């Protein structure tokens, strides 16, 4: 497809007028501009946040993100809780993919207190993390088309996701919140017959991927809506701290699993997909390839996982778990990109400070505000969904 032809780039150098700093002069009383608030109860906005858009015609002149609708003060609350009590709190920081939270917190705690994790536990952790990524991607890959009113793929994806959640229930006992990864290891063994059922589900997901390739990725209307729209320029990647699929779509091969291998990722054969076009369509393709890769990784994990009984390291009584003084930053790759937690310990039972670095923090605020300028009002939500913003991790 001739991509250049589809890119819609009107000349906006003359109107609206810009001042010397390059900011548009918006005079709402002149009736040339419209102020449009979208959210928090707007079905197109991902999660509970809102956009304040200034429109000139159909085009966005100025965009502001408003967050804070989900602020619970986690970082304050965790200062009042012991390390063990932090776990149930931390997983609620990002609802869509709670396992990353568990992992980064326990990785940070283990690193500070020097706990060695048994090998089987590491494999099981990796399984949980990849399953979490799988269930997110099953929701997100067709979700971009769902924003553009093709809800069918989303419905199928949700159905597939339910099966993965069933497997989660089998493995951990929880449907959304798992609390599976704890300092020193994991909470349970692989159940009997889990591998067989999981492989059956993965086969089903393979079929699903073929179906959405036909339904979504080869659909001409979908291409027309997404190719050349919402371009993330490569020079913004460092400027805005872009990570994960948006960065990989812009030609930066950044994947924490490859760059800073944690757990047993260096024993697994995978290669993150990279593209350079950096529009919505490319990001959707990157996510779809991630989905294929995740399915492959889970197959490898199930193949290589050792059948060992030891899944918890010897840890001191969790009630008096005290952690040596120090600070640590632990990171992992979530479905949205680099996900990290910075913990400062003052040697007591309670953390001195916990700070979460979620990819949405920059994606949804600084980057989104930049990307929405000159976007068509119809594309705003497609751009937003393609960045996969998750409000709870912005305000925590």
């Amino acid at each position, binding site marked *: 497809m001739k991509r250049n032809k589809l890119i819609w780039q009107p000349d906006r150098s003359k109107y609206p007028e810009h001042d010397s700093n390059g900011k548009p002069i918006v005079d709402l009383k002149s009736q040339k501009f419209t102020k449009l608030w979208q959210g*928090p*109860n*707007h*079905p197109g906005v991902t*999660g*509970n946040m809102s956009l304040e858009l200034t429109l000139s015609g159909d085009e966005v002149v100025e965009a502001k993100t408003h967050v*804070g*609708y*989900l*602020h*619970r*003060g986690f970082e*304050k*609350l965790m200062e*009042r809780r012991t390390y063990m009590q932090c776990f*149930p*709190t931390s997983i*609620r920081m990002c*609802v*869509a993919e709670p396992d990353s939270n568990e992992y980064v917190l326990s990785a940070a705690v283990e690193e500070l207190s020097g706990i060695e994790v048994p090998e089987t536990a590491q494999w099981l952790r990796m399984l949980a993390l990849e399953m979490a990524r799988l269930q997110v991607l099953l*929701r997100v890959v067709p979700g971009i088309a769902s924003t553009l009113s093709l809800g069918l793929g*989303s*419905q*199928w994806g*949700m*159905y597939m*996701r*339910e099966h993965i959640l069933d497997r989660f229930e089998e493995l951990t006992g929880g*449907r*959304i*919140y798992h609390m599976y990864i704890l300092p020193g290891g994991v909470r349970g063994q692989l159940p009997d017959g889990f591998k067989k059922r999981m492989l059956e589900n993965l086969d089903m997901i393979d079929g699903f991927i073929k179906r959405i390739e036909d339904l979504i990725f080869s659909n001409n209307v979908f291409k027309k809506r997404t190719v050349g729209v919402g371009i993330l320029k490569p020079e913004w990647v460092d400027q805005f701290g872009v990570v994960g699929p948006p960065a990989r779509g812009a030609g930066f091969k950044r994947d924490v699993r490859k760059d800073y291998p944690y757990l047993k990722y260096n024993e697994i054969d995978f290669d993150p997909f990279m593209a350079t076009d950096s529009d919505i369509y490319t990001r959707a393709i990157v996510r779809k390839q991630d989905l294929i890769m995740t399915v492959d990784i889970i197959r490898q994990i199930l193949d290589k996982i050792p059948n060992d009984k030891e899944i918890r390291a010897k840890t001191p009584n969790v009630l008096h778990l005290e952690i040596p003084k120090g600070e640590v930053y632990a990171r992992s790759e979530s479905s949205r990109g680099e996900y990290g937690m910075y913990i400062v310990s003052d040697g007591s039972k309670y953390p001195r400070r916990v700070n979460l670095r979620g990819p949405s923090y920059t994606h949804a605020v600084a980057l989104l505000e930049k990307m929405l300028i000159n976007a068509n009002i119809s594309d705003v939500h497609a751009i937003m969904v393609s960045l996969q913003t998750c409000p*709870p991790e912005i305000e925590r």
Partner: protein
Amino acid sequence: MSEEQNINQNNEPKEDKFLAEENKIRLVTGPDGKQFQVNPLDDYFCDKRPQVVAPKNKIIEKFLNWARAESLWVLGFGTGCGSIEIPPLLSPRFDAFRYGVQMRPTPRQSSVLIISGYLAVKTLKRAIRTYEQMQSPKYVMALGSCTINGGMYYDSYNTINRVDQYLPVDVYVAGCMPRPEALLAGFVKLKERIKAGNAEGANEYAEKFDWYKANQKKIIKNWNMPDYNW
């Protein structure tokens, strides 16, 4: 401009430091050259309190309640983490459409407000606004233990502990977070309540309007909008 400021200093009885500039009392020059004072909060908005609309005929009301119960239009407003379980509710496995539950994108058209989890103060303001924009009869369903007694956020400075102090709640669904099955059970419960004629939350809100408003204003410090603005 200077005159406007003078007016503000003189006539404003108590200074509301969060009041936005466009909501302050100011002098406006009319087309005939006369100046008059405008208080936007009083003058530009509806000044009618919500009214209690009592059902008239019992038998007809019974029939209408049945129709209302079977056609629950839910506002797509995910206020908290419980909203992650709303999409599965509408997908093949749970399929709430069978129960007459449909999603509506605008508060004007919806009849059920789902408070899906904890409410931060900032969201509470929007939830109240949304609730008031909905048309009576309207129902509130609150999910999760955090709406019942604060749950695990009992000590958070930014989330409220009990929703029923601010909005009349019809059904609570416990759990953190409630599973879709629990949500479906909650819908069935709500239907029972409506069919029995007990779900008169809108009237209750109108009756105890002052109490609710006092509670709401206690924690929402920058109210910054008129009291009646639907």
